[in-house]
């Protein structure tokens, strides 16, 4: 629960008012549903999906067949995935309070791609790595390295960088 | 941190006035024991006690307290 209190307030007003009251666990179910669908589409088996999302295999199966889940939750979850990357990430982290599952859900449901570059002015202070909720940043030889595959474009690293060395660009993929 | 004076303790000996390197820069006759000729200095003895004229010029080198016999001039 590091970053997120303000975001929850904001989203409570904008999303939840228009879609009726949603318990956080329902939104989480919606997010897991969307992730499961994407992962199955990527060729993973139901067993693998269940393991990644730490769910029963039967629940995954139910989800994929549209059972035990209100469509309303899915709609809300879909709206959340379309938020700006920082809101999507921080809200998801607040809902799950679990770093590893947050990473998987955000990476799987993000439609945007980002190219991250660290300039030579980086001093290797590690503040970005400590800040990154996607664990996309590692330090090597006194320089930060961002794994663009995992970067969701939240720009929190850029904001904390004391030397302004992080440049993150959204990759235009034609859609 | 600032230079301060306790006039109750001061004997008016002028050790601080002549030992202060900044005083000596502003009024060279202070270097070597004479009284400064201008009120631009940091401190001077007036009516038998030391008075701070320009404490903002103090660089807090700690020389004057070193020579003060009664701890009347100090940094705080």
């Amino acid at each position, binding site marked *: 629960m590091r970053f997120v209190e303000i975001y929850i307030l904001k989203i409570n007003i904008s999303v939840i008012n228009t879609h009726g009251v949603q318990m956080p666990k329902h939104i989480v179910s919606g997010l897991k549903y969307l992730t499961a669908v994407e992962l199955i589409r990527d060729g993973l088996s139901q067993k693998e999906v269940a393991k990644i999302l730490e769910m029963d295999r039967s629940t995954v199966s139910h989800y994929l067949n549209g059972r035990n889940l209100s469509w309303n939750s899915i709609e809300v979850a879909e709206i959340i995935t379309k938020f700006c990357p920082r809101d999507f990430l921080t809200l998801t982290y607040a809902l799950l309070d679990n770093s590893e599952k947050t990473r998987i859900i955000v990476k799987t449901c993000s439609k945007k791609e980002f190219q991250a570059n660290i300039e030579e002015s980086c001093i290797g*202070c590690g*503040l970005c790595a400590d800040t990154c909720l996607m664990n996309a940043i590692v330090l090597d*030889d*006194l320089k930060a390295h961002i794994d663009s595959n995992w970067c969701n474009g939240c720009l929190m690293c850029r904001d904390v960088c004391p030397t302004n060395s992080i440049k993150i660009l959204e990759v235009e993929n034609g859609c | *941190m600032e230079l301060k004076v306790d006039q109750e303790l001061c004997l008016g000996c002028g050790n601080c006035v002549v030992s202060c390197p900044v005083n000596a820069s502003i009024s060279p006759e202070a270097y070597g024991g004479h009284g400064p000729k201008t009120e631009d200095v940091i401190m001077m003895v007036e009516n038998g006690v030391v008075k701070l004229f320009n404490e903002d010029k103090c660089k807090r*080198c700690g020389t004057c307290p070193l020579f003060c016999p009664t701890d009347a001039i100090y*940094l705080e």
Partner: protein
Amino acid sequence: MVANTKEVKENDICVQRISPEEKRELNFKDDICIGCGICEKICPVEAIDLGDIGAIERNEIDESKISVDEEKCVLCGMCSSACPVDALELKLDDKSIKEMDEYPQLIKSAEIDDETCIYCKACETACPREAITIARILPDRSKLVTGEIEIDKDTCINCGVCEEMCPADAIEMEHHLPTSSDPTISSDINVNKDKCVYCLICKKSCPVDAIKAVCRSCSYGEYDLKPEDSEIEGSSFIDDDACVNCGWCEEICPVDAAKVEKSYAGELDVDLEKCNACGACIDICPCNVLSFPESTKPGEIVEKLKKDENFCIYCGACENVCPVEAIDVKRTDVKFTPTKSKSWKKQLESLKT
């Protein structure tokens, strides 16, 4: 945000940042700090401020020589790498960056070669930081001289002349207070052969010729003295915390056993016109480079300040403390181990003036 915490204990400072991935901890040890302000200069986020080191060094105020703003500090470790005396140390997960190859390290050392050292203690005396300890075991005096001595106690009148004359305190008399029944000053006399050097002073000064003594070293030369008996054994120790690599030990060592490598090179200029001889620089200098010259004859007017630049480490503490800007320390070189990081290299190079 991952926030820093700061703890100040006495005048030592500890700044920490703990995240699930890593614990970073910067430690500042005030008693090691020499007030050079290099940390303030190299800090990329201006988190460090040098205090009023003149007043602090002269015990006029009790506070840390530097202050660290934990809101600004990013725990990058540049201050730790550039500190010439290791008063600052950054640890990543409890491991010092001074032990990590990827971090540039200042190249500096001070060593005494025990093979060459003659344990004369010149360096121990000269070291301005009292960082050197020379432990030595001297040879047995009795093995360096040889002879014979005997006191004929029947002839001896216990007058005490030999005891007073003996330069080696080798004659030991059993003193007692004279009484009416025994009005002498001593009841017995013996020679401590571990101390006796067979100089024969006792024999020559005895008023009753009670001492027989002969020195074999003098009459027969040195043939029966073993050279190994005259060897001095010992060991040297340099306290790394206190050592500032000033080079006094290297300069004063008569047998070139001490070797010092300095990390900074440069020039030290004193403007004697501006100097008003307050002595703040003399007090702060960790290397005894600066001093007030002493007059050699009555009435001689000496310079206000004397410098011995040989021992300067170009730390710049004197320049920082001078209240009248009479001192200029130029750094022309900074020696550090190679690093792949261009930003670190650039920042360390920026210490050159």
